[in-house]
């Protein structure tokens, strides 16, 4: 799928990927690919500006962790992030139903 198509939805997709449990950037990319059956393929680095913005907006939090001698920045969704995700889901469902109705 083209990156431009994903661009407007990346915030919600990242929040959804973090909903179940925290993850680092590479882990989020893998979750997005797995859950989309490998449809969502974007330049992997672009996940980081999104994560940094979500953190500035208070929707995710992050911290450095040390696992097996390796430093990784792990992100987790906040309460505000869960609320934002709930709203985005509602908006998406309305939008998808409307598009489906028109296209069908």
């Amino acid at each position: 799928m083209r990156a431009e198509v994903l661009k407007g939805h990346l915030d919600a997709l990242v929040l959804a990927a973090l909903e179940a449990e925290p993850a680092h950037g590479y882990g989020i990319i893998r979750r997005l690919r797995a859950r989309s059956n490998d449809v969502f393929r974007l330049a992997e680095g672009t996940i980081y500006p999104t994560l940094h913005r979500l953190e500035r907006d208070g929707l995710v939090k992050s911290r450095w962790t040390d696992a097996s001698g390796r430093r990784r920045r792990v992100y987790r969704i906040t309460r505000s992030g869960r609320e934002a995700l709930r709203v985005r889901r509602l908006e998406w469902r309305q939008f998808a139903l409307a598009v489906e109705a028109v296209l069908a």
Partner: protein
Amino acid sequence: MTYLDRLAQELARVGVGGRARTRILAEAADHLADGDEAAFGDPGALAQLFADELATQATTRSAYFAFGALAVAGTGFAAGWLLVVQRGTADITSAAFLPLGLVAAFALIACPQIAFASGLLSLLRARRLAKLRAAPAAELSLLARRTRTALAFGAASMVAFAAYALDYHNSFSRAQVTAGTAGAAALLLPLAVAAIAARRAAAVRSAVPGDAGDMFDDVPLALPRRPWLACFALAAVLAVPLLAAGGLDEGPRNAAAEVLLVVLCFAVFGRRLGLRD
């Protein structure tokens, strides 16, 4: 040159430095230990993505900070003015060096008004751009110009205040002159800190396309897009209280001077501050 070296170089090119750059490079290094460079994306494009968002955040924040610094300086300026003139203003011809006194007196009237107008325009634009993920480079550039202008004229107001107090020292007590000059010097400090923040923010370069817009995009009112009409309307609004307060003798003179000042400033700074084409 490794991928991380190229990313570091590209981040430096777009002005992303300090802790943000360190964090980005550390996360990229961790990611690339698992993934491959081709999938991570072009380093130039990635650096620009970061810069587009960080420039918006830094420039709007620096505008807020500058307005805060101007508010502190403006409050101090007003308090200092009341302190210095509590025994009445000095006779304009009593300056130790008259040309300096005249320039300082004019600057005392004009500079705070320009600083306030620029700062307010900066604040209005910052409020609008803060809602955007990545604002157009031209809009951010205009915002930065407004912020710099506000800070420069804020600083000029303080210098003018100190110069006025010193040049007309014969008309004031020693304590008034000392307090006036020391206060003006102290009030330069928040403005200097805000200027440094604005300079740092301007180092981050957005590349988002789009027009700079003008004041009608910033004012939350549906006004006719006629800049000079807006200028004369504003001048009239500012002149009316001066006309009323000055009485028959000084009122018309003060009001005419204010109208002239507003129109002159609009002509000189209009394009720089995005007030007119």
